């Protein structure tokens, strides 16, 4: 009998352990000596020792600023960062800051977990936003209001193999300027064992073609899309013709294209500035970059991550989070992040700094990306439920380029899908 009692006590003790752990873990994180500890979720889309650079930036901030300790927490890719941010916010334990991609900023606003930033921007006084490239600011707005500030930004640029240009009798210093030339060059550069051109399929690049052709993707409120416009259909017809003529594969992703490019399997490609370092390190030939060839208009979209601030914390923490985000976007820090990561520095002034000049001298292609920013708009689509709309777009673009549905029917179907997704935002 006594033995059994012991046994039951032991069992109860085992059962209690998780309860005790829960109780102690649920308390506020200990803030010794009254310092504010800011939890900051950041994603990394590309490989490299970016975590170390992020950590060293935060350490520098902590050393230079009394009373605040920023704790950078690597949260996976953009999707996973959003998953962690949203779930922990809903569980009442939000991060103070996070870096989210444009589509997820919309969702964060719809879910009511982040702060509008206009009051902070106003408090900084006039001209605060001048530190950013104007083209990068659009991704920080939801239906016209600021909810974020840009930090790690990228944009597509045009990569080409200069050796193959020479071989095909083309001037290696001049990239195709418009769609007609693009097709002409692709025809000359396509051979039996390589493509002339690769354009990774996703809503980002395909939307650029639509906008270059004079089309629009969505309204500013983010409740409507215009994907069945004649301009949009025509843009898809153009891309489809490149596939049908054999100049371009029907489907590539960003990673596939850059490995094809360095392997000499394609002579030209559209790809992100995020691939600059990879191509620099892997290409065994002479290569160059240029602005994207223009359609009726010269337009490029930006992408990447921006800072958002949680609304589930105290005003003092929100202010501390803003101060940190502001510091990170100053020329010195954005330059350091750009040099280490390959993202474009968000501040024009950063390009004047000596370390940045040294960097761009070694990688002059980064200057092309900067100069192209004067034609930049935000990452499309800018709508509610943007990830779902994006996925519908990417999937339909794949079907069209695979020849499974005509551009006119496909874009009409796509528009119907996006209307269904957005219907609930119409009231």
């Amino acid at each position, binding site marked *: 009998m006594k033995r*059994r009692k012991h*046994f*039951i006590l032991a*069992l109860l003790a*085992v*059962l209690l352990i998780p309860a005790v752990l829960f109780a102690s873990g649920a308390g506020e994180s200990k803030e010794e000596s009254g310092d504010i500890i800011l939890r900051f979720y950041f994603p990394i889309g590309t490989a490299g020792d970016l975590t170390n650079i992020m950590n060293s930036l935060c350490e520098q901030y902590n050393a230079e600023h009394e009373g605040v300790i920023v704790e950078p927490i690597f949260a996976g890719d953009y*999707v996973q960062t959003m*998953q962690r941010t*949203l779930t922990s916010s809903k569980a009442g334990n939000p991060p103070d800051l996070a870096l989210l991609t444009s589509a997820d900023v919309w*969702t964060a606003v*719809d*879910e*009511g*977990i982040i702060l509008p930033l206009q009051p902070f921007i106003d408090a900084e006084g006039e001209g605060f936003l001048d530190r950013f490239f104007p083209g990068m600011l659009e991704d920080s707005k939801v239906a016209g209001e600021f909810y974020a500030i840009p930090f790690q930004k990228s944009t597509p640029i045009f990569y080409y193999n200069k050796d193959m240009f020479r071989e095909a009798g083309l001037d290696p210093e001049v990239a195709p300027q418009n769609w007609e030339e693009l097709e002409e060059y692709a025809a000359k550069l396509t051979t039996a064992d390589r493509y002339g051109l690769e354009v990774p399929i996703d809503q980002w690049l395909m939307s650029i073609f639509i906008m270059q052709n004079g089309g629009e993707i969505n309204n500013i409120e983010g409740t409507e899309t215009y994907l069945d416009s004649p301009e949009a259909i025509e843009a898809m017809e153009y891309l489809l013709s490149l596939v049908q003529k054999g100049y371009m*594969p*029907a*489907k*590539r*992703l960003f990673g*596939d294209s850059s*490995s*094809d490019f360095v*392997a000499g*399997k394609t002579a030209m490609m559209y790809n992100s500035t995020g691939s600059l370092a990879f191509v620099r390190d892997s290409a065994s030939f002479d290569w160059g970059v240029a602005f994207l060839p223009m359609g009726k208009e010269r337009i490029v979209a930006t992408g990447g991550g921006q800072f958002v601030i949680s609304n589930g914390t105290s005003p003092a923490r929100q202010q501390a989070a803003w101060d940190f985000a502001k510091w990170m976007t100053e020329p010195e820090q954005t330059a350091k992040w750009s040099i280490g990561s390959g993202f474009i520095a968000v501040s024009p002034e950063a390009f004047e700094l000596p370390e940045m000049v040294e960097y761009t001298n070694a990688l002059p292609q980064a200057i092309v990306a900067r100069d192209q920013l004067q034609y930049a708009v935000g990452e499309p689509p800018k709508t*509610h*439920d943007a*990830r*779902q709309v994006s*996925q519908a777009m*990417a*999937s*339909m673009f*794949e*079907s069209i380029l*695979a020849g*499974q549905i005509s551009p006119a029917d496909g874009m009409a179907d796509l528009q119907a899908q996006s209307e*269904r997704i957005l219907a*609930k*935002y119409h009231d």
Partner: protein
Amino acid sequence: MKATTNKLRKYGQAYLLLLPSLVFLLFFTHYPVIYSVWTSFFDRIRGENRFVGVANYLEMFTSAEFQQAIVNNIIYALCSTIPAVVLGLFLAVLLNTKIKARGFYRFAMFYPTILPIATASMVWVFLLSQSIGLVNHVLGMLGLPSNIDWVNTSPYAIVSIIVVYIWKYAGYYMLLFLSGLQTIDDSLYEEAYLEGANAWERFYRITLPLISPTTFFVVLVAIINSFQAVDQIYVMTKGGPHNSTNVLLYYIYEHGFVYWDSGVASSASTVLFAVLLVVTFFYYYGLQKTVNYER
């Protein structure tokens, strides 16, 4: 009253021992199932849940994406389960004979099972790459079509997914079958041999009936596995190209944790739950009679 006390005394310890797993089952299995059925009647809009009745189910069943996910899942389940189980059985019978280096072959066949599926899928993405992949390279050396973009074009993408599933699980099923085969008494085979039964007859008349409990179990596991495929698809194709490798669980993941559309994700979970329940039920009660349990 007395009887209850007696019972409690008699079984109390057993219940107490079961309590932890019961608590976990309740909180982490039964409660979420019920909650997700409940959630499936709400639509999430601007961060608020709004009651919409069965609208989520209607929206889902009428969407081409969901219909295709169902069709894909059925194709995937049939085309991956049957070959993987047959191959597993074949390998098991082969490696149950006394051949040289048997242990090595068994290990080699079982090896894919040890690898995490995400890692294995990533390796296969490279093997199947159109320009630098080993698969196309080998096909080229054999003089076969070798410019196939395996994971990016239909129908090759779903073929790739199925091949990787078979590669990954056939060895595991082999191991399960092997354990079944070891329980068969050798004397049965010797007797049949003396009676003049050939290899096929021995397999068909002795092996197959006697391992039927194992087969029963393996097939059930294989079916459930094929409905739970998500990591492999996440790594290899993300449901693409144009939805051709989207299956139920990936559909749920995408709607739940990328689009944050908890209503539709819960509806799809409920459907998946119902499908698996029905499959398990019919399989269990329908086939139990034909299974030969030797007791």
